[in-house]
């Protein structure tokens, strides 16, 4: 089957300092993939380069075999929550409707169909009661769910989410993960920049470990190993009781992870 996303030889540099060095990545369709790595590893840059928000120095990105320009409609993007001004004078429903702007194109204004769409998406993230609220009145978790609803109305095939679990409460985290599984069940592919290594095996089926270079990527069961994590995080990670067993299985790795010094 054709991969949902195929990145080859992607290099992004800031002057002569590589942020991403010759990264190859293939994401099979209908999977949930976590992108993990230490701060400054280029996780957000990877997403931005794939979406053409950052110009790569080399390499190409194909979505179902074709470049982004031709596949825009298939791609949904959930930026980091902090990337927008939440004091902007607009309502929750309005923000969600922005997800439909792409299919409307220039000049055409959103109408009843877009409203219905947006309301249904808000229902899905359990934020329907907040539709008419000013966005500055939302908590962090609620803001994140609004962003998710906005991605849902884009009705994309591949979603990129930049740290959707950042600073959200447990309820929102559950809601988000349920939603991700829902998307996967409907044949969508979701690529998530993720920080919490503990939950990787539980939440995702694919993982990509990067630290400027791609250390490893593939099914969590094969790739999410102590050796790869060490290669990714260097000495900044603590494992508990690894003397017992050198061939750490993913589930064990989960138990052994104490935490990452970010």
């Amino acid at each position, binding site marked *: 089957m054709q991969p949902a996303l195929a990145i080859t030889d992607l290099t992004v540099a800031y002057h002569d300092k590589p942020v991403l060095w010759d990264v190859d990545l293939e994401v099979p369709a209908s999977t949930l993939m976590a992108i993990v790595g230490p701060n400054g590893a280029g996780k957000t840059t990877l997403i931005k380069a794939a979406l*053409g928000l950052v110009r790569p120095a080399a390499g190409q990105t194909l979505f179902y075999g074709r470049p982004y320009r031709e596949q*825009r409609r298939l791609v949904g993007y959930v930026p980091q929550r902090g990337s927008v001004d939440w004091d902007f004078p607009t309502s929750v429903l309005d923000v969600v409707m922005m997800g439909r702007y792409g299919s409307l194109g220039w000049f055409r*204004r959103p109408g009843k169909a877009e409203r219905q769409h947006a309301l249904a998406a808000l229902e899905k993230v359990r934020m329907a009661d907040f539709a008419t609220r*000013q966005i500055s009145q939302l908590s962090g978790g609620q803001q994140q769910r609004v962003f998710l609803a906005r991605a849902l109305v884009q009705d994309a095939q591949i979603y990129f989410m930049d740290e959707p679990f950042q600073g959200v409460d447990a309820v929102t985290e559950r809601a988000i993960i349920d939603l991700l599984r829902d998307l996967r069940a409907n044949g969508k592919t979701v690529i998530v920049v993720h920080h919490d290594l503990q939950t990787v095996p539980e939440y995702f089926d694919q993982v990509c470990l990067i630290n400027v270079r791609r250390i490893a990527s593939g099914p969590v069961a094969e790739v999410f190993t102590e050796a790869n994590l060490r290669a990714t995080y260097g000495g900044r990670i603590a494992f508990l009781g690894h003397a017992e067993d050198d061939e750490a299985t993913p589930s064990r790795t989960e138990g052994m992870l104490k935490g990452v010094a970010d």
Partner: protein
Amino acid sequence: MSSTMEVQLIAIVVAAACALPGVFLVLRRMAMMSDAISHTVLLGIVLGYFVTRDLASPLLFVGAVATGVLTVSLVEMLTRTNLIKEDAAIGLVFPVLFSIAVILISRYAGNVHLDTDAVLLGELAFAPFDRITWGWLDLPRALLIGSITLVLNLLLIVLLYKELKLATFDVGLAATLGFSPVLVHYGLMTVVSITAVGAFDAVGSILVVALMVAPPAAAYLLTDRLSRMLGLSVVIAVLSAVLGYWFARWFNVAIAGSMAMMTGVAFLLAFLFAPARGIVALGVRRSRQRWEFAQQMLTLHLLNHEGTAEADDECSRNHLSHHLRWQPRFAATVIRLAEQGGLIQCDGMRLMLTDQGRRLAQEASLR
């Protein structure tokens, strides 16, 4: 049409035309760019004049708009080097371009109708004398230009409302959805330049800045919807213009100065009295929260000591200020408010919770 009427009409269309793009400048935190553009367009006018030797040539207008856009890109170029922050870059670019214009005028165009005072303050009172006649049409030039600018701005915002909103709120999403934020940005800056050129001939650059920044800033405090913010900005700008005109008439002072002052007054009023976000509303809410919180503390304190051995001492009116370290007068007020609110009952010196007070305390203890 009387000239009084005409001056007011010019002021009204110019005010409305400036307020519309001003909303997006304020939301994009680029308010100071209006200051820069409204000054540097002068350089374009001067250079255009040197090329054409004709103050009425449309090339002057084109040149002015071009320097406005040039200002924006110069500021961005400087900012992108990461050696200077944006505010400093604005402060560097615009005085340079503006002063080149001033030098050129003073050296080569001293005898032409291009003087620097008029640039800063405009000459609205004389605007009705500069007329355009075209068939049956006989209008002040400033009114015609102002109206065209206003129509253009209205059209742009009606047609591109959704694009402007998206690119202002979330640049990243705008880009991924295929609405080039760079295009929207430079489109907006072109419109700001056109508006500044069209307006400053009549009202001067200071008033252009005042009209682009103050009404949107005031409207921002009064509403939480973009469409209403646009509408309110226009209303505030127009009211400031008309009131400013009459203020100038009554006190026999500069018209543009009075109008700019009125925009400041409008902002001050919104700042103080905006229903949800004004200083007064905020103060009232803070003070109410303070008293409500104090009452909650009181009920929680009473609940904690209810039925205990030291209850007589802890729940006594006299000892309350001692235990909670409250000023006696503050404690007395809290007790009075709590009693009026049905939260506590006073039995001589002894304070007792009512059922309602107990419920509040229990709720508070869960927080």
